[in-house]
């Protein structure tokens, strides 16, 4: 089969790789019909994520049609259309029982590696390094799905792929970010970034009764998409974010802050961002944490900071003094997709949201390598790429 494979920093290729096979009775094989490039895939593309290996198949936002199931799979069958959550969960451990699916105790076969890096191992993820399982990803024609009774979400006929594909990751991720921000009716919510996750966080904030949403970015078409969702915007290349937010909130600061940027933050001349750039250039850090620092400084006293943006290592110069003395609450984590995807599917079916708004490029899988670069460089108005194997 054809698959997009990682071959090093900024080197993604279309390769012919062996078709996946059932290796465990709880596995399913899914023929991929649509699959997306995620912003977090760019951390792999840019070489920020350790334990990637030449030839690893990328991708964690897939959907498709079930081709084959293992003998212990009961809930899905050949021919079902399914969306596949990016996190792999066993469904039976203590964490899965509490619906903390991205913290599954059992699904990461390389858990000892993860334990050494993080203290404990989170769930295995599709196509996201050997530290997180060494599972092949979904930017391919076929995908092996472990624990197939737990992850895949069956999709009723009549809903196009484009409307449900993002239940695999970015819609639940944006929603969980807003939910974890603990928005109360009328709250002012500031969202750093206007990328795909941020777009869903903005819309989810409205669903959760925010009174005002402010989005921060520098890319005109992304800011326009945020404005289309009735968010006010700040261009960080033109205005000082802290000053502007204080002006907009009469010095109080946003009640809820969402960092939808993560470890590859850009900034306009901020000393801490230059410091990060230098450290990153000499391979002294994997994270450029300007947004994290800025959000802590901007958030109102006693507010909440929700972090869906991916961090991978050990960012420093984090203002812990401000975090502590302002009594901020921090919520973060990989998304517990299976906890959210049923209810978000219902919202789609009810016509409350059509997630396809975020798609700007839809191309064959073989164009994946060039689309990685276009997406990374934010060229050609690129906000979200869907690949068709």
């Amino acid at each position, binding site marked *: 089969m054809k698959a997009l494979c990682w071959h090093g920093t900024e080197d993604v290729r279309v390769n012919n790789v062996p078709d*996946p096979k059932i*290796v*465990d*009775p*709880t*596995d399913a094989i899914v023929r991929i019909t649509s699959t997306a490039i995620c912003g977090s895939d760019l951390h792999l593309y840019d070489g920020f994520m350790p*334990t990637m*290996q*030449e*030839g*690893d*198949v990328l991708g964690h936002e897939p959907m498709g049609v079930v081709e084959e199931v293992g003998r*212990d799979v009961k809930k899905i069958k050949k021919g079902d259309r399914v969306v596949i959550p990016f996190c*792999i969960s*066993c*469904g*039976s*451990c*203590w*964490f899965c029982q509490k619906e903390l699916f991205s913290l599954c*105790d*059992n*699904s990461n*076969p*390389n858990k*000892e*590696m993860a*334990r*050494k890096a993080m203290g404990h191992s989170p769930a*295995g993820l599709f196509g996201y390094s*050997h530290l997180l*399982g*060494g*599972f*092949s990803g979904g930017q391919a024609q076929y995908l*092996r799905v*472990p*624990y197939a009774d737990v992850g895949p979400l069956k999709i009723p006929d009549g809903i196009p792929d484009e409307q449900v594909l993002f239940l695999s990751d970015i819609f639940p991720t944006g929603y969980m970010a807003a939910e974890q921000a603990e928005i109360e009716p009328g709250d002012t919510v500031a969202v750093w970034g206007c990328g795909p996750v941020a777009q869903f966080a903005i819309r989810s904030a409205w669903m959760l009764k925010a009174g005002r949403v402010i989005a921060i970015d520098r890319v005109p078409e992304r800011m326009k998409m945020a404005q289309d969702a009735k968010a006010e915007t700040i261009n960080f290349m033109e205005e000082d974010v802290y000053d502007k937010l204080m002006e907009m909130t009469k010095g109080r600061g946003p009640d809820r802050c969402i960092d939808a940027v993560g470890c590859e933050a850009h900034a306009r001349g901020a000393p801490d961002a230059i410091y990060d750039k230098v450290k990153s250039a000499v391979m002294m850090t994997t994270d450029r944490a300007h947004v994290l620092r800025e959000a802590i400084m901007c958030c109102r006293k006693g507010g909440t900071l929700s972090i869906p943006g991916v961090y991978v290592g050990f960012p420093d110069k984090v203002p812990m003094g401000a975090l502590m003395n302002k009594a901020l609450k921090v919520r973060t984590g990989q998304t517990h997709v299976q906890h959210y995807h049923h209810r978000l599917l219902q919202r789609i079916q009810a016509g409350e949201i059509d997630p396809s708004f975020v798609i700007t490029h839809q191309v064959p899988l073989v164009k994946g390598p060039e689309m990685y670069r276009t997406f990374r460089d934010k060229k050609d108005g690129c906000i979200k790429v869907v690949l068709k194997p």
Partner: protein
Amino acid sequence: MTVTADVPTRLTEPTPTQGPAPSHSPPDTRYAPGIGLARGLGWFSIGLGLAELLAPRAVGELTGVRCPGLLQLYGLREIACGVGILNSTRPTEWMWARVAGDALDLGTLGAAMVNGNGDSGRACVAAAAVAGVTLLDVICATQLSAAAALEG
């Protein structure tokens, strides 16, 4: 103060996951940094082994080691290592076997340098080449061992 029976027990220990996973799904690929280098060294090993096995006298001419029988044995060792490397998803042990073989080769070439009748120059050049390959073998074996240690 006496503790009455109706005071609820305070749970202070985290509740662990009970029982085994319903199954264990293995990774699709094993973490083996350096696997590309290992594959290259595996093919090199087979090539050198075939040369030693099939043309021991020519190899002896090049290296100053004029013991055809010994060279054929070394050839078999090289082929075994090469096949082992190419047939393993993470050939850590096979790479360390190559390092041990390199030490043997260097010892043999050292002996040829000391005892070789006029061939010490060739043996010296061959030893330098083997030392270079040994360096690559050690780098590769170390990378693979580090990955194995990370997996625990």
